[in-house]
């Protein structure tokens, strides 16, 4: 059973940062000096009228009901001409490593025959609030078995090993009736001893019933002697307007971080099915705070109305 808090960061909260911003997508929790902080990405249109996403943060009190502060400008700016993150960053995933903070970013770069490509970048911070790019190049991009759309990195350190859950695309598919190619991507994982050099095997780890299923935004938390993974999934086509083919939350669990057992029922009841998340639930972020497991996520229209929170009872 989940207790749903509803929207905790709304579009009107976002407009207080900057009235030109829209969407508050992919909330990502990190504890900074005992305060709950959520990183999220928000977007505005560039000169061509295309969206560019960049990361911001907002901090809460321990009840998650009161906003205590927020970043007044993007945490990092978009990348330089020709760089993997020239056209924005979405999502932005911070994690505390020792005394420092790493943030794994997903950089967007526009293409011609298909819309975009994505690669994973790395930023670092000493205080958790001010981040700098480690370099202008990507940490992880296309590789032999992972042809494109390498993104949505989420990193945790368990048993002295770094684990990354992320996605890569394996196929651009053209709708039967014609139109723009749509991407198919799913979840995989990599391991590392330092968070920089990753061992990848190009294998999808979450089972599907439907070959048209896309999976995104994996997030993992250790709670009650089990590793819990949430993610979102949708159809390759016709997923933008809500309903059956739009994003829903999925779930899998593991006891060894190798084998994952899918069981979406565990997370199905999270949605309050109220106005803000009736047609879509996406971009989940699992975390443990004060002894409880929480899931922050977005609702209808990919986060147009902000992000919400639920607590596992």
């Amino acid at each position: 059973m989940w207790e749903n808090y509803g929207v905790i960061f709304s579009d009107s909260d976002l407009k207080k940062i900057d009235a030109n911003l829209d969407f508050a997508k992919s909330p990502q929790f990190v504890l900074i000096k005992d305060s709950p902080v959520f990183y999220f990405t928000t977007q505005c249109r560039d000169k061509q009228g295309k969206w560019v996403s960049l990361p911001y943060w907002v901090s809460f009190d321990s009840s998650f009901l009161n906003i205590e502060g927020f970043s007044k400008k993007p945490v990092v700016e978009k990348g330089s001409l020709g760089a993997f993150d020239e056209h924005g960053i979405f999502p932005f995933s911070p994690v505390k490593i020792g005394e420092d903070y790493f943030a794994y970013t997903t950089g967007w770069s526009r293409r011609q025959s298909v819309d975009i490509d994505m690669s994973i970048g790395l930023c670092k911070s000493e205080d958790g609030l001010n981040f700098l790019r480690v370099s202008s190049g990507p940490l992880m991009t296309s590789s032999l078995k992972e042809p494109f759309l390498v993104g949505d990195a989420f990193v945790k350190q368990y048993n002295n090993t770094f684990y990354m859950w992320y996605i890569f695309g394996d196929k651009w598919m053209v709708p039967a009736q014609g139109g723009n190619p749509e991407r198919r991507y799913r979840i995989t994982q990599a391991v590392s001893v330092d968070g920089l050099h990753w061992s990848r095997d190009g294998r999808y780890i979450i089972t599907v019933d439907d070959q048209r299923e896309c999976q995104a935004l994996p997030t993992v938390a250790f709670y009650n002697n089990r590793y819990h993974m949430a993610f979102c999934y949708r159809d390759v086509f016709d997923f933008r307007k809500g309903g059956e083919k739009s994003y829903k939350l999925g779930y899998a669990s593991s006891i060894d971080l190798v084998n994952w057992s899918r069981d979406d029922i565990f997370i199905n009841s999270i949605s309050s099915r109220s106005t803000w998340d009736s047609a879509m639930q996406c971009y989940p972020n699992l975390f443990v705070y004060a002894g409880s497991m929480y899931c922050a996520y977005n609702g209808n229209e990919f986060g147009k109305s902000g992000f919400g929170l639920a607590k596992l009872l």
Partner: protein
Amino acid sequence: MKLEFNKLGVLFNPVEYSESPAWMQGFAQAPNAIEFDGFIRVYFCTRGQPDANNMYISRLGYVDLDKSSLKVMGVSKEPCLSLGGLGEFDEFGTYPVSVLKHNDEYFAAYGGWTRCESVPFNISTGMSKSNDSGVSFKKFGVGPVLAPFLDEPYIITSPKLRFFGDRYVMTYTAGHKWIKDANDKPEIIYKLRIAFSKNLTDWSRLGKGIIPNKLGADEAQACGDIIFKDGRYHMFFCYRKALDFRDNPANTYRIGYASSLDLIDWCRDDALTENLRPSETGWDSEMVAYPNILSVGSRCLMFYAGNGNGKSGFGAAEIKGF
């Protein structure tokens, strides 16, 4: 010391060859010669007709030359390397390509092209192997083996594949930065780097430039072809100025030289290749580019591209006493 070059002229230009297939209608770029029984096969990158937007896709072909006269015996009927699928890194061309023959196996490393919005292209390096003795090559996988990385943020291309000692060695070009010319058109500056591998799939990069600049910080460097001779490694490469380099002879490609004892530390000494200047007239009057060395019998041949970086075909020079 200066090397003496005896220019042999243009050896192949698909425009002037009567049996060029439809995909081989212009350009013979980045020549790469391999000795076979009875002939020399020179792989090169070529193009068919441009599309409606005047965009080309570069493909790998070869021409077989008589071993002594270097006269054309025939060309490949089909492209040797397939293009990638929708959205893959090599969807829009394979250029340049480096073919290595090692223990009777043939491998080809290649730059795979994708098209972008703000800059014209991005390039990553793929790997392939031939199962028919160098007629066609099958890719190792759907993605690249060497792609942009933290300190190599942009294009990864111009591979030159060799095997020395117990490992594969690949020089390549890493994009250093995109700059805009007077017409606001983005151009890429690139520098030579080197990587090592036991299996051609997993590469260990040195992680720094190996050739010091001669034309200032914005010099572009490509095509580092290495041979081992007389106890040291010799590298021939090409370099140019950052902008207006396509047909302005003051800025176009020249061929440089560096040597090394360990493949890591290189000493640049372009005096050795100073005698390989563009000709007064003809196919290589505007530039000399993309060198490739092949020793055949007692001759040491350098294959290279001329004007338009291969638009006028490729030719060769014999390096005397080398």
